[in-house]
């Protein structure tokens, strides 16, 4: 495949491209970042990436949300975009928010105890106190 063609494909699927990039950034942050706070934020990145992917899957250019605003206009499928992914994203956001809260609460507890956000340092201190 030509470079131009690849770029054209990526531009056509720009939402998917962006969401995969964002997902990888979030995943890398969660796995490799040593700062607990940044790990939790990375989780937000990762979840947002998935939400972008899902919403873009349901969105159709030029169509509107499936709400009947004017009863005199007959409702046809062709006018509306798919509402199901939006419903899934809504559920996903609830899950993501609660996990962010839980993660931050745990981070705060650890910070109060060990006065550090670096997970390596916390692990070292915890190991010391165990021995």
């Amino acid at each position: 495949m030509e470079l131009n063609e690849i770029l054209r494909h990526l531009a056509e699927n720009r939402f998917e491209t962006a969401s995969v990039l964002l997902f990888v950034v979030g995943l890398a942050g969660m796995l490799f970042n040593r700062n607990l706070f940044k790990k939790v934020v990375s989780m937000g990145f990762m979840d947002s990436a998935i939400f972008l992917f899902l919403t873009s899957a349901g969105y159709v250019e030029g169509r509107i949300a499936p709400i009947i605003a004017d009863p005199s206009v007959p409702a046809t499928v062709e006018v509306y975009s798919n509402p199901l992914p939006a419903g899934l994203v809504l559920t996903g956001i609830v899950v993501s928010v609660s996990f962010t809260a839980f993660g931050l609460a745990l981070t705060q507890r650890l910070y109060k105890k060990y006065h550090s956000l670096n997970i390596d340092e916390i692990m070292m201190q915890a190991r010391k106190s165990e021995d």
Partner: protein
Amino acid sequence: MRMFYENFPFFCVFLALLSGILTTLVRDGKKARAVTLAMLLCAAVLNGAVFLETSLRNVNFTYAMGAFPAPWGNELRAGPVESMLCTVFCLVMLFSLMGGGKDLEEDILPEKQNLYYIMMDLLAASLFALSYTNDMFTGYVFIEINTIAACSIVMARDCGQTILATIRYLIMSLVGSGVFLFGVSMLYTITGHLLMPSLYPAVTALFDNDSLHYPLAVLSGMMCVGLAVKSALFPFHTWLPTAHGSATTASSAVLSGVVLKGYIILLIKIMCRVFTPEEIGSLGVGSVLFVLGACAMIYGSVWAVRETHAKRMIAYSSVAQVGYIYLGLGLCTPAGITAAIFQIVAHAFTKPLLFIATGGLIRASGHQKKLYYLRGAAWRNVAAGLGFTVGGLSMVGLPLLAGFVTKLVLGQAALAEEIPQWQMITALAAIAVSSLLNAWYYLPVILQIWKKEPEPRGPEGEVYDEHKENPGLSFRTAVLCMSIVVVLLGCLARPFVQLIARGVALL
């Protein structure tokens, strides 16, 4: 006309959630405990009834939730395998809570005890839903509920170590569920379905046209890896030993016996009901799971040999045992899946038995957790000693115990004609080496705890009183029941394996 027992799967989920609400209202630890134990008992009976009915009739059924039919509404689906596993989960949670009761009272602040039982109720609800659900997104939501409840029961014993273990567990779990959700989203964008019965023909059509091979490989790989991270398959197991080793006894037992398995059941359902096992095999995902499973069997055991902390040693042994399950799944044949399900049941009883027994031994040794100080502990708490011996010998693979049957069934599945030669050799070698390593670390511990010492001493030179520790009736009952099940699974293996095989055919 719908049979009445078809309502039971929904009743179980509902009952678990209801008892969670009741538990918040009672506020008293003792009453909360009673509510939860009663709920688990009821759910065990209900699930058991579903299992009896479906396995006698050899059927499965779909249960529509609410007024909307299939493509719009949500569905539950139950068959012999799902209901059997739910029954096992209820019983294991019941025994774990009974056996770990004394540690729970000491490890958790009195005013927070009812919160612990709420998490147990939530865990039970999510496990039932994970086993019975027919919808991928519902599966995802209950995975997350399961995760949050599991993390909470790790940190119930409030100290720096458990909080650290919890946050590591939380982060790895979230990586897993994120990857899984991305896989599900991709599957949705390709097929436009989330219900398993609608996904199955769509995916089969894709395979028949030989189209979208790579996207399917990527998304099935992401779903499998996501669930593998959550069920601690090597090399994603790093969070497991600290989380299971530092939590209170009942939590360790429930986490290792039940929570890890919930995700694997969803994986089995995806393998059988969205794809077929052969399709997963042809995508190459099966081989990856197989190799990782074989590595886990060896690696987990090697680390268990090196461990001196009693509970962490058992936790590393869980890593190896999860490897057995994935080895069976990786074979991508009905026989392999049958072996994996048998291992799920066997491990669900054996590992909590070991954790509960170890908890008892540790209590009888002045709360010393190093293996060295447990010597002679079996004489101070005979029930725990017997439980540990039965569990340990089962792990080693002594005939007439559950662990032996796992190895046998797994070996038979690997020797089937359609299995490629490299898998056959790897599987047999991994089983042999892993059994040897299991013997290497379980047998010395068993010998050590039964070693009669004239004056058993702790690290400070203090002498343990032989008759000080009374483990209590519920501890003895729990250990005895689980030991009996482990022995029964070993003795009545053939009919039980046939039962599972019939259930797998119905999946």
